[in-house]
């Protein structure tokens, strides 16, 4: 029998769905980028607590981001986006907490293409000369595994190394992982990664070992400005909605949530974000979809195809004998 299609797509409480009885409330992260100061304490705390090895001593030239991406050796990644204010902002300019910002003389917005925060051939900053300068934005955002409601990595794992915890989070058991790498191509966010020289897949565990002891994950504990908030997901979603409202009231219309919606392509994220621009600017996929969403359909099609093949074969034999 095919599983209930709803368990691969749509709203769901993952821990009970995974078979936990009397599971604790689903726990997660709300990362509010509007108060992130880019200190990277989350990256360091994560590495210290989880014993994550060095991820390379390379100057990347992506503003102050020398981590580059979430990898097997970086489970938190702070992105830095140097961004001239462009025509994309319709409302009166305001800073992240809402006070209006004097932009002085208007910048010539046609002076270059909109900077999306992607590494490219152009330097991150582009100049307008001493007279044309105004404030610009430096966005910072601490990225992490999303702990999806419908986690494709977990669905495709052949060994059972990836599992759903009682807190609704998704964790790799390193002693079971055989390094097949299916999970890597399955992740719609490009989070999970294979460690070189090790072969196994590694990613954020949402500090499963701390959660069990009633502790806060290392990154959230270290965050000085409460940009990373940890708690029951329901509470976090309420808090996040209120925060967006506050920011809108204070004249920051671009504030929006990402990954909070249980009806999105992954059934909502256990780790979701408040962003100040389009997700692409931060290097996030705009509309992530669990890669196993279409499995039932695919199975149906495969089944139909098999039936048709069988029928054709039977027909061929029957026909042949006639």
């Amino acid at each position, binding site marked *: 029998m095919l599983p209930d299609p709803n368990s691969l797509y749509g709203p769901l409480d993952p821990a009970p769905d995974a078979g936990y009885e009397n599971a604790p409330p689903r726990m997660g992260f709300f990362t509010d980028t509007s108060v992130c100061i880019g200190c990277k304490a989350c990256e360091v705390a994560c590495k210290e607590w989880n014993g994550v090895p060095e991820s390379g001593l390379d100057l990347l030239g992506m503003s102050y981001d020398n981590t580059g991406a979430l990898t097997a050796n970086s489970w938190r990644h702070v992105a830095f986006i140097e961004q*001239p204010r462009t025509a994309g902002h319709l409302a009166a300019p305001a800073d992240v907490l809402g006070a209006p910002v004097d932009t002085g003389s208007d910048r010539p917005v046609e002076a270059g293409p909109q900077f999306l925060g992607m590494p490219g051939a152009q330097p991150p900053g582009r100049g307008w*000369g001493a007279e044309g300068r105004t404030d610009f934005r430096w966005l910072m955002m601490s990225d992490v595994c999303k702990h999806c409601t419908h986690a494709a990595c977990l669905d495709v794992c052949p060994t059972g190394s990836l599992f759903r915890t009682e807190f609704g989070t998704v964790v790799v058991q390193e002693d079971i992982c055989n390094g097949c790498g299916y999970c890597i191509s399955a992740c719609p966010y490009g989070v999970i990664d294979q460690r070189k020289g090790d072969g196994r897949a590694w990613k954020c565990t949402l500090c499963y070992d701390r959660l069990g002891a009633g502790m806060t994950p290392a990154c959230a504990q270290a965050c000085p400005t409460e940009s990373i908030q940890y708690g029951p997901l329901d509470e976090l979603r309420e808090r996040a909605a209120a925060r967006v409202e506050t920011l809108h009231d204070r004249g920051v219309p671009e504030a929006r949530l990402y990954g909070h919606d249980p009806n999105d392509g992954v059934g909502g994220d256990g780790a979701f974000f408040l962003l100040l621009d389009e997700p692409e600017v931060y290097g996030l996929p705009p509309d992530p979809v669990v890669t196993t969403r279409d499995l039932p359909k695919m199975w149906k099609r495969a089944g139909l195809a098999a039936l048709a093949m069988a029928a054709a074969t039977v027909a061929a034999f029957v026909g042949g004998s006639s």
Partner: protein
Amino acid sequence: MAEAHPVGFQWVMEAKRRGAKVFHIDPRFTRTSALADSYLPIRAGSDIALLGGVIRYILDNELDFREYVVAYTNAATIVTEEYADTEDMHGLFSGFNDDNATYDQSSWRYEGHTQAATTQDSETQRETAAGLENESHGAPVGGETERDETLQHPRCVYQILKRHYARYTPEMVERVCGIPQEKFLELAQAWTENSGRDRTGMLVYSVGWTQHSVGVQYIRTGAIIQLLLGNVGRPGGGVMALRGHASIQGSTDIPTLFNLLPGYLPMPHHANHPTLAKWVDSIAHPGQKGFWGNARTYGVNLLKAYWGAAATADNDYCYGYLPRMTGDHGTYQQVLDMIDGKIKGYFLLGQNPAVGSAHGRAQRLGMANLDWLVVRDLFMIESATFWQNAPEIETGEIMPAECRTEVFFLPAASHVEKEGTFTQTQRLLQWREKAVEPPGDARSELWFFYHLGRVIRERLATSTRPRDRALLDLAWDYPTHGPHAEPSAEAVLLEINGYDVTSGRPLASFTEMKDDGSTAGGCWIYTGVYADGVNQAARRKPGAEQSLVAPEWGWAWPANRRILYNRASADPDGNPWSERKRYVWWDAEKGEWTGYDVPDFEKTKPPSYRPEHGASGVAGIAGDDPFILQGDGKGWLYAPTGVLDGPLPTHYEPVESPVRNPLYRQQANPTRKVYTHPINTLNPSPPEPYSQVFPFVFTVSRLTEHHTAGGMSRTVSPLAELQPEMFVEVSPELAVGRGLTHLGWAHLVTARAAIEARVLVTDRLTPLRVDGRIIHQVWLPYHFGFEGLVTGDSANDLFGISLDPNVLIQESKVGTCDVRPGRRPTGPALLDLVADYQRRAGITPGQHAPAVTEDNEGKEHGAS
């Protein structure tokens, strides 16, 4: 602040949540700017011009908090006729002495005072960084002054201030700092609107602000604004100095400075302080008001703590044993003396001058000329390996086989491997326990010094030489524990706190100290930290369980007072200025001062108290004089004495500047400390010729990811990988102008050194229009050196040595340089490059710009 103090910045974010408006002023757009409401790029070294503009804005629009200003500051005090201002003297004050480039301060005195009561000439004061003595107590003045509370007298401080800052107009701010007028006015308006009866504004700076040849005057300019706006001694106000390390405040209180003893008692000078009586009189200034009247008590208690039973009234409590200053023993003088072979041995503890101090090459060459050097650190830092790995090996200036310095590297315990206190910027002592044992041979500083002293004393035990008595008579008896005989840090804290000699009872307050040898205490301002025999610094009652002031978290000196001069949070009659800013007030029914904090005032002295004529010491402080450590009980807008470079902050250009001072004929601080040692070559600045050889301004500071000279971060993988290479930030405009490419190489050249760095082209650096031309600034982190997991050239190598005259802090936040694409040459060619620049700039060794700028042919700068 977000960049260098991310943990403290949480409170700025908290204030923002509650509606505070944050302005950030910095030469580069930092993480702080990213979170601020408004960012003002500024030309490095022009801050007094900006803040002077704010003072003018306040005075011109009469936006000062007049009741506060009249009652609590010296605005109404009348100054003698002899005083002449920079307005009339091309940027100099009256009293300038051409022979030694110092001021005779007597013409700055208050009307009716006979003479500014300094005991030392101003050259000795500069040599001994005497300005530091004023850090916690005002410079000496008599208590009774002539005042005009209508502020109309032409020689009252208020009017002098008005004249002095008359030329600091918004146009001038724009011209000097490169800050557009509308941006400046936005700042001035927000600052004044958020100050007064109902609101207070805070000025926050980090240590880089002090590192200028006019560093002390930077802070004073900020303090003048805060006094004019009534933002001192009140909640949410003040000038908050963010310190550079966890306990830099502590290392000024219990000092690691050559000219101070614990509790801001000055180190005696061999000529001026021959006896205990002369020494304490030079601190107490008989006749002066305030708490320093008890200086003898503080001094005797310190001597009793040092020498215990050996210190008696008959031998002046062993005052003769105290070391004496003979002149400038500051770190830069010492390095130059090392180069000249005058210093044989040196201790370095938690310091990495090969990377962290100005003129790195001088630092390394100096250390390479010692007989021995002891380095105690967590890692093998550059200052321990300079003899084999310094850049001077490549150039042939240091040869490892011939370097005579014997380096002893002793591994040190980190802060989690030993117990003790940190004193942070709020003067708050916080105790920390030892979390883990130090690895291997690593030991605490306390262990090291205790056992070093013990061993030396054992070696000298049979000595009969008088010179060894000071060591042998020391009270050197601390309880120890554990396999390594670790001394008890709490026993040291108890000694610092002070105790009754007979009973051993810990003192509860410095008012219990006696000057007859019956009490001993190592640092009078810390008395109370061990009150009732309890380690008060170890208190950790959560904020949610106590008042907003949180008096039961740690312990703040003095007397657990969280805001100094908090008498000023009440009006002259003792009532809160407003309900919103209620903090400390007079309870008339009970007849005492009360409030949320420990009142910084004699508890039962009523607001109406007026001293008898001629009263001195504490009795001389009136009931409405909140500044109880000042000789006249007032906050000083104008410093009639004690600040060596003038009674009022004045904009001088940095010693190295591409710009002629737009405000005065005088180019740079005329009283700056100059070292003419041949190694200390300085780039020329206008009006000297050839300044265009070094056309760009450079400034250095920190990244969040690294700590100071990198000894604790470049050596640690999770930090090192976050900022793995030395880089220089340049604006896109400069990149185009100089052919620099993003992630390519550039090298920077000054008259001292050439260093290379990878290029980050970024809009966070912006060219500024200054005095009609475009000035480019570049920024570098100063964390890199040649040891550790990640290495790079050291930014501090670029600086020369020019010091502030008051405290001998170096100008290491601004200089001029040239920027060129590509990597620097190596080996002897590197020396040739620097020599070529020196030749092109007309620099000869030992040559320095004159103290007083002569520019007769030029236009009259800034005269209105």
